[in-house]
């Protein structure tokens, strides 16, 4: 699904954060990216989303080279990014509205979509309901709690029926109970619909709960990917089990190790 080949990318004075970096993710897999802040987690996500352009190498998604946002990729950011002047209903409909605006041109929207106002409305209603925010659809983002806004942002993305979901720290601004609830919602999508997802997080527990594969990035320049296989995906209720706790400390060690390596350079 996602193929990163010999990627090179850096921010001018800070030097490269990726050099000759390759990783590939299969369809239907749930991945998380974790690492110390400034290690390039969000950068990698934005590169895959087509919002940044690699300095070298290539990124392809679904067999196509990425050089601009891909219509079938969904993106959810930490700060929901809802339009403050539009109601929740209109916000959730926004992506479909944009597809109508351009028509099925294959560039801004998939070339094979059907544009049907009635079906669109049903889809919006379905996702509002699925994320439990139907009763809020006439409200404006400012009237909602953070958790509700994030639900709306997720609904807005899923309405577009993406084949891949990218999320950047989607739940880090939320209180623990709401965060866990939304993590379960995401687990459900993965289990029931086989949604391919890639989530950036700085929270070790979240990395374990949302990723069957965990990519650990290091400070400085990333060359070889460090990938942890994890079968504890979705086991948030077992987070006090020794197995879960061990996995977390293993990750913590890996992240700290990555930091030390940087210190020794």
């Amino acid at each position, binding site marked *: 699904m996602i193929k990163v080949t010999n990627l090179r990318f850096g921010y001018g004075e800070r030097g490269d954060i990726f050099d000759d970096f390759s990783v590939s993710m299969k369809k239907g897999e749930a991945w998380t990216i974790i690492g110390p802040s400034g290690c390039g987690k969000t950068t990698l996500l*934005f590169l895959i*989303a087509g*919002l940044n352009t690699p300095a070298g190498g290539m990124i392809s998604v679904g067999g196509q080279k990425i050089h601009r*946002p891909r*219509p079938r*990729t*969904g*993106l*959810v*950011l*930490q*700060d*929901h*990014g*809802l*339009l*403050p*002047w*539009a109601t929740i209903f209109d916000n959730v409909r*926004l*992506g479909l*509205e*944009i*597809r109508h*605006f*351009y028509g099925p041109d294959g*560039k*801004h*929207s998939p070339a094979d979509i059907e544009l049907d106002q009635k079906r669109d409305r049903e889809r919006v209603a379905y996702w509002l309901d699925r994320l439990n925010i139907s009763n809020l659809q006439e409200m*404006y983002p*400012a*009237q909602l709690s953070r958790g509700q806004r994030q639900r709306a*942002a997720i609904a*807005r*993305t899923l309405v*577009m029926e993406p084949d891949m979901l990218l999320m950047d720290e989607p739940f880090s601004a939320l209180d623990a109970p709401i965060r866990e609830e939304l993590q379960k919602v995401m687990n459900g999508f993965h289990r029931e619909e086989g949604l391919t997802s890639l989530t950036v997080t700085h929270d070790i527990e979240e990395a374990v709960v949302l990723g069957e594969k965990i990519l650990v990035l290091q400070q400085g320049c990333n060359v070889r990917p460090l990938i942890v296989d994890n079968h504890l995906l979705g086991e948030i209720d077992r987070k006090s089990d020794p197995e879960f706790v061990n996995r977390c400390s293993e990750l913590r060690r890996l992240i700290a190790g990555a930091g030390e390596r940087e210190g020794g350079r």
Partner: protein
Amino acid sequence: MKKKTTLLSTLGGCVMIFCLWQLLSLAVNRPILPSPVQVVPLFVVNMTGELGLHFLASTARVLAAVLVATVFAAPLGLALGQLPRLDRVISPLIAIIYPIPKIIFLPVIYVLMGITDLSKITLIAIIIFFQILVVVRDEAAGLRQELILSVKSLGAGRRALFKYVYLPASLPAVLTALRVSVGTAVAVLFIAEQSLTSYGLGYYIVIETYQVLLYPEMYTGIMGMGLLGVLLYFSIYSIELKVGKHLFIE
């Protein structure tokens, strides 16, 4: 959140101003301050005649100026707000020009453009231009990058971004800027209309009535100009209420 003005509070304000006017005219008791009882009926009658034409001429000038100013200022404000590099170059200039009372350029504009309707409209447009420019620029600069990125990720290119983000984001700002600057616009109009024109409320008040001591008629002109300001203010306000519903949430 902004505070809503209601119809009732506006009516209350009108009643109060007429009461104060009446009291003041009784207290002063001189021809320069006639009672509203005398002026208001005269105003109603005159508005269907000559005064109405003066009123229309003034309205047309203000509206033309508003239109010209918006057409030039809004796109430039958007550009400055979204292109920080351009803004860094130009903003010192704007910061200096913004507080200068533009009316002082009246003679310059008259000499350069002649004392025509065009020069009057230009003068008012210049004043409103800077108000809109600054507000739209700040509004556009305040659009968080995250919002723009997430709308881009929904497939929006430049045209869709303009339609779904920049336009709705700056429209309420343009309206607010217009609403607060419309008072200044009418004031400048009053001065600009005093020279070499034959229609316009400023001309009517100063040349046709004040200078020939027709005080009650002069007050109908003053009422006309007041009404113009109030009407413009509230029409813009009512559009604001429609466009910026999210700003008026209880």
